[in-house]
């Protein structure tokens, strides 16, 4: 177990380092970083001064060395816009995104497991067909559009919920729903598929012969075995949820990491971008380990080597 974790961490560390190096050199090799850092209307004197202070006149490799030294101390430099350490800004924004993604994933999973199981129970039945049409639609709708239409109908026309902000529970309903739609639609199809094969297995027949009720067969016997592929896809979707978070946070004005990052990108605040990349990558790494642990919990046959 510990050996597995060690090996896994090493692998991820290579990816992480690769990612950071990639982002660093992308910014350095495609032009003078001064122009990336400073506002477009900065004067030449300001630019020269800025380049000198931040060491942009040094050779690229020396710059990279300084950057690595900083990164090892978790110091990505200060945000130009807020004049504060970039990492602090990112860590402040992170919990909002995490909560948003957590609730969205939870809701998506609950909906998908219940719907997918019921659809698999009566294959090609009425419920199955309705479920497959809805899952097709939910996988096709762009989330930014459904967010806008949601605001239009629920907030502007019906005045049921506020249009933006994070203060009250009502303000979380629409963002979480928008974020959950796409994963829910995709996971329903996975649950349906794996549930179908689980329901046709021998142990389900045994349980049925013993007179176990339908609900118990689905949710006690079959579900646990049907969950393995679901967890794989849910993990992928959780990574993709950061994509959705960028959009949802922008539309609803949530102070999360997606919003911060888009803001940093449009304002050329490179230290924040770099820190946000790092934090997101670490979060995804932890998520992947949690998923592996879930596998082991669900299927005792899986052993880590």
């Amino acid at each position: 177990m510990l050996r597995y974790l060690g090996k896994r961490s090493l692998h991820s560390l290579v990816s992480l380092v690769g990612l950071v190096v990639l982002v660093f050199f992308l910014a350095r090799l495609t032009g003078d970083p001064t122009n990336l850092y400073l506002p477009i209307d900065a004067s030449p004197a300001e630019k020269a001064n800025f380049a000198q202070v931040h060491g942009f006149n040094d050779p690229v490799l020396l710059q990279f060395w300084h950057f690595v030294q900083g990164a090892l101390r978790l110091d990505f430099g200060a945000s130009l816009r807020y004049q504060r350490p970039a990492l602090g800004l990112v860590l402040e924004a992170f919990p909002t995104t995490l909560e948003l993604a957590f609730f969205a994933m939870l809701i998506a999973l609950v909906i998908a497991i219940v719907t997918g199981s019921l659809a698999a129970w009566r294959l090609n039945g009425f419920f199955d067909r309705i479920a497959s049409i809805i899952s097709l639609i939910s996988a096709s709708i762009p989330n930014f559009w459904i967010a806008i239409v949601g605001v239009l109908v629920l907030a502007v026309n019906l005045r049921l919920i506020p249009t933006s902000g994070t203060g009250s529970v009502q303000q979380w309903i629409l963002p979480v729903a928008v974020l959950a739609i796409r994963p829910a639609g995709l996971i329903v199809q996975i649950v349906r598929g794996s549930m179908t094969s689980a329901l046709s297995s021998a142990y389900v027949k045994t349980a049925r012969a013993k007179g176990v009720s339908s609900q118990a067969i689905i949710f006690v016997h079959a579900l646990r075995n049907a969950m393995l592929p679901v967890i794989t896809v849910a993990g992928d979707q959780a990574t993709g949820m950061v994509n959705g978070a960028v959009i949802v946070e922008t539309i609803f004005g949530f102070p999360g990491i997606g919003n911060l990052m888009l803001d940093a990108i449009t304002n050329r605040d490179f230290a924040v971008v770099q820190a946000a990349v790092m934090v997101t990558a670490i979060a995804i790494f932890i998520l992947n380990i949690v998923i592996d642990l879930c596998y082991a919990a669900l299927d005792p046959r899986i052993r880590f080597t």
Partner: protein
Amino acid sequence: MSVVSDVAIAREPGAFVTSIRLLWHDKFAFTAAVFLLLVVLAAIFGPYVVGGDATAMNLRMRNVPPGVTHGWLYVLGGDTLGRSLLARVIVGARTTMLISASTVVCSMLIGGFLGLIAGYRGGWFALVVMRVADIIMSFPSLLMALIVLYVLGTSVANVVLVLAITRIPLYLRTSRAEVLEIRERMFVTAARVLGARPRRLVWRHIAPLVAPTMITLATLDFSFVMLAESSLSFLGLGIQPPDISWGLMVSDGRGYLATAWWLSFWPGVAITLTTMSLNLLSNWVRVATDPVQRWRLEVARKNG
């Protein structure tokens, strides 16, 4: 001998006709195919037919609500500058389809090619390529695209490049896995024994077997790429005005949600219907090209 085979061909209609007939009997897939055909036609001919109307401002038609009272050009309403929304949606189809198609083709060719080499040669090249693919795959694609666009600046070519970068690993992994399996088959060994050079082995013997998988993957991936392009344009880092893209139109209309909902609504409907048709049709293609599952369609056809 030749007479016999001629008769057989005359009785059994060609693969194309058979597929069209199969398609006709699946009403959902058929509707999807017709709609996609319309979108493609709009993308090709739209700018010639209504290109002028898409940019012509008519101040009397500013924010006209959808309806038939103002002539067919304004059935979907007018935008804030009095331009016909219908014409703009039609012209927008070109940008959206062009970018999605180029991205899918680029990532398929590059990813497939790299996968061929990585799978056949192995060694340090495969190691590096697969590692880079892992890095790209392990990071949210939209964020990756935003970062690269931020560095490179926004243009149509860069949007294609960026989207392709995020999709290449998918093709790369699939193509490499296929090559690893095909490489060990008997006919490849036979060809090698006969003295075929590596280049000939890869191109004449292995690549033709990988190609169908790549194409299936590409049809499945098309709708994903379309949504990604729309998202980028919506966030303001994709297509820039005066170019028209559906994602950009949704974004432009956001500010007028309370007064002119149709500005954001129709382009979104266009995106949704197109991706939905693509998903429906690619599902159908997957079943129709799979010999194990094809009977489902044929049975449905006989019953229906």
